[in-house]
């Protein structure tokens, strides 16, 4: 029987909160608690990402489950005194819901958390990811023991097929089918790979899962190994994720110590081990065949399929590659049954999906929702609506392979089929909310800049095509757009989609095609009126000073890097348009709203 404490103080130690200083907060908590002689009554632990990163550093106090935000090191002595000595909730750090304008102490009452359904993230903010025992305490490794001791490979595959789980890495291919193909492939040596390259910009689901529950991913891989007959797994993880790498290394070490990785696991006769492999910063390496090339030590370039990796993958052996989140679902499917999993979600899209909700939404963070929830519910019920009372303009879903969906179709349910119909894809889970201040041409240009840069260059349609699209978009956003440009974008886009070698090119035009489809008038304003309605595209806007409002404080003049603002003290200033580079510094610094943008 483990020791009982009256209070558990759980400090979030995900990347976001660590960046906001949460490790120092935790250490200070421990020293304050010792100072008060409460060490035997109160437990302090660090957990993985809680998801609500923008409110960090985050602390949760149990048993009440009270959520404290922005609790910094300097706040700790007061906090501990109030909480533990005086026994009060510390109001100052409670979360305030803007619409209701009231403080909400209990984490699960906060809209952001209340509307989520946790399967993949079931352990989030509840266990210390560096302590394997805590994972085991929440049923960890029971699924592995079940799969290894009580199930045949066929039964495992069958269970996964029943669950209806589809790959969470973007394409949404049936995981059960993938495993079945590989299981049936001939070969003594097979591999199972985990894709933790997470390349989509604006997405951090996999990072969060790895940081808060690394063992769940390891378990998914062990079970997958048993199903297809692989004894070796690799996790391909981005070098940009140092904390996730550290947690994975710790988790693998602990699992080996316990004999949960290695030979004869649980005395079942099944051997399995996992090795980490660090990605070196190429988006295309997230693509399955490129990823395998990269592990083999080569330039990460995709190759045509077939042969599919299930027959010829890593080192030309039958291989299964799945995404982090896909694997993290597996233990629970084994434990609670495929039918249970299939009861969540919609007809064709089962289970839950983790999204990284970011951008101009009030509550930014990581969320897990059942498939079939509408975009509206995500943005308003969970996200708390748009920041600063602005209007919603678009929701970008699916990253560089996805699209921008306008506010008018916000009631679309989030499942694979419905989202594809809109021209976007569910993708890996990036969801960036944009308010009226965003220019859709500019956003399309941003994504094309990304894909053109990351195109590996092997196939011509993608290499040359993305460059053409980017050039056209640049022309349009800089006032050189011509009649017919929209049509060129559409034709070239469609050609790239139909003729590229891999998923990168096949989806790269989506951001353009969706913005044209839903925001054509904005393209037209750029092309015909030489105007940017959102006032983002620098070449199409001018800054001016309103003489009525200008007090002549000289602040803008001092800030201007071009020194193109002139005027006497206490007299209205003016901007020399021929020198202005539209850096917007004057606009940002003016305290009197005297700078106008047109």
């Amino acid at each position, binding site marked *: 029987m483990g020791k009982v404490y009256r209070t558990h103080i759980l400090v979030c130690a995900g990347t976001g909160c660590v960046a906001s200083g949460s490790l120092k907060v935790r250490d200070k908590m421990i020293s304050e608690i010792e100072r008060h002689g409460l060490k035997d009554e109160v437990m302090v632990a660090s957990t993985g990402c809680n998801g609500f990163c923008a409110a960090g550093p985050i602390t949760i106090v149990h048993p*009440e489950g009270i959520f404290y935000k922005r609790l910094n090191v300097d706040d700790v002595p007061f906090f501990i005194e109030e909480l533990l000595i005086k026994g009060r909730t510390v109001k100052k750090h409670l979360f305030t819901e803007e619409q209701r304008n009231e403080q909400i102490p209990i984490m699960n009452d906060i809209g952001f958390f209340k509307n989520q359904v946790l399967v993949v993230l079931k352990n989030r903010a509840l266990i210390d990811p560096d302590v394997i025992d805590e994972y085991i305490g929440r049923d960890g490794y029971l699924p592995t023991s079940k799969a290894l001791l009580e199930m045949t490979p066929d039964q495992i595959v069958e269970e996964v097929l029943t669950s209806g789980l589809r790959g969470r890495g973007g394409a949404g291919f049936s995981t059960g089918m993938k495993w079945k193909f590989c299981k049936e492939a001939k070969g003594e040596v097979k591999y199972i790979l985990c894709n933790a390259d997470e390349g989509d910009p604006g997405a951090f689901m996999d990072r969060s899962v790895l940081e808060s529950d690394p063992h769940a991913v390891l378990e998914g891989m062990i079970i997958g190994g048993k199903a297809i007959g692989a004894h070796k797994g690799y996790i391909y993880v981005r070098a940009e994720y140092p904390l996730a790498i550290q947690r994975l290394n710790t988790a693998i070490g602990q699992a080996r110590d316990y004999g949960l990785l290695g030979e004869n696991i649980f005395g079942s006769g099944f051997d399995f081990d996992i090795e980490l492999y660090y990605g070196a910063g190429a988006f295309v390496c997230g693509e399955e065949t490129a990823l395998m090339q990269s592990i083999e030590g080569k330039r990460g370039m995709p190759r045509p399929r077939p042969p599919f990796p299930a027959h010829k993958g890593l080192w030309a052996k039958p291989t299964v590659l799945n995404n982090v989140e896909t694997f993290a679902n597996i233990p629970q499917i084994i434990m609670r049954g495929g039918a249970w999993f299939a009861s969540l979600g919609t007809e064709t899209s089962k289970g839950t999906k983790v999204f990284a909700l970011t951008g101009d939404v009030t509550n930014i963070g990581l969320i897990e929702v059942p498939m079939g929830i509408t975009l509206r519910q995500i943005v308003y019920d969970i996200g708390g609506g748009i920041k600063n009372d602005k209007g919603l303009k678009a929701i970008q879903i699916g990253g560089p392979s996805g699209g921008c969906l306008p506010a008018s179709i916000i009631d679309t349910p989030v499942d694979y089929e419905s989202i594809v119909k809109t021209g976007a894809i569910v993708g890996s889970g990036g969801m960036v909310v944009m308010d009226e201040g965003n220019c859709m041409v500019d956003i399309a240009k941003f994504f094309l800049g990304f894909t053109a840069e990351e195109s590996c260059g092997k196939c011509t349609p993608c290499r040359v095509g993305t460059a053409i699209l980017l050039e056209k978009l640049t022309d349009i956003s800089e006032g050189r757009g011509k009649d017919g440009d929209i049509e060129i974008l559409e034709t070239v886009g469609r050609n790239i989609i139909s003729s590229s070698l891999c998923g990168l090119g096949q989806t790269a035009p989506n951001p353009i095609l969706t913005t044209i489809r839903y925001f054509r008038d904005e393209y037209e304003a750029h092309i015909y009126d030489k105007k940017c309605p959102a006032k983002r595209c620098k070449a199409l806007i001018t800054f001016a000073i309103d003489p009525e409002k200008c007090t002549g404080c000289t602040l803008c003049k001092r800030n201007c890097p071009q020194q193109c603002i002139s005027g006497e003290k206490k007299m209205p200033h003016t901007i020399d348009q021929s020198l202005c580079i539209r850096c917007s510094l004057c606009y940002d610094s003016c305290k009197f709203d005297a700078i106008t943008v047109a």
Partner: protein
Amino acid sequence: MAKLKIDDLKKIKEKVQGTIAIRDGSHRAKITVHMGTCGIAAGARTILNAFMDEVNRRGVTDVILTTSGCAGLCSKEPMATVEVRGAAPVKYIELDEEKAKRIFADHVMDEKPVIEFALVQGSETTY
């Protein structure tokens, strides 16, 4: 470290569960010791320790123990509230170690409130 067998896994699980059960709110009973300034002065810490010893000694995993601020009835301290899931909370007053042990045995374990130590049955619930 020796390799885990399935029984070892279950042992670890039980051990840890006792510690971390408090975090997911799935408890059967909750004991709240009121530890405002007056409560502490009146000896609330001894009561807390008594309850904690009971929990540890009996190895129960579905009971959580917590503290709260002043219950607003300083003259009757030390006090504690016991909430068993599905029943109204009971406030106990003027506690000592012996009484705490009895409350634990009768009310928490057997779900029979100890009427003679109770102030009232039913009160505001605490979060």
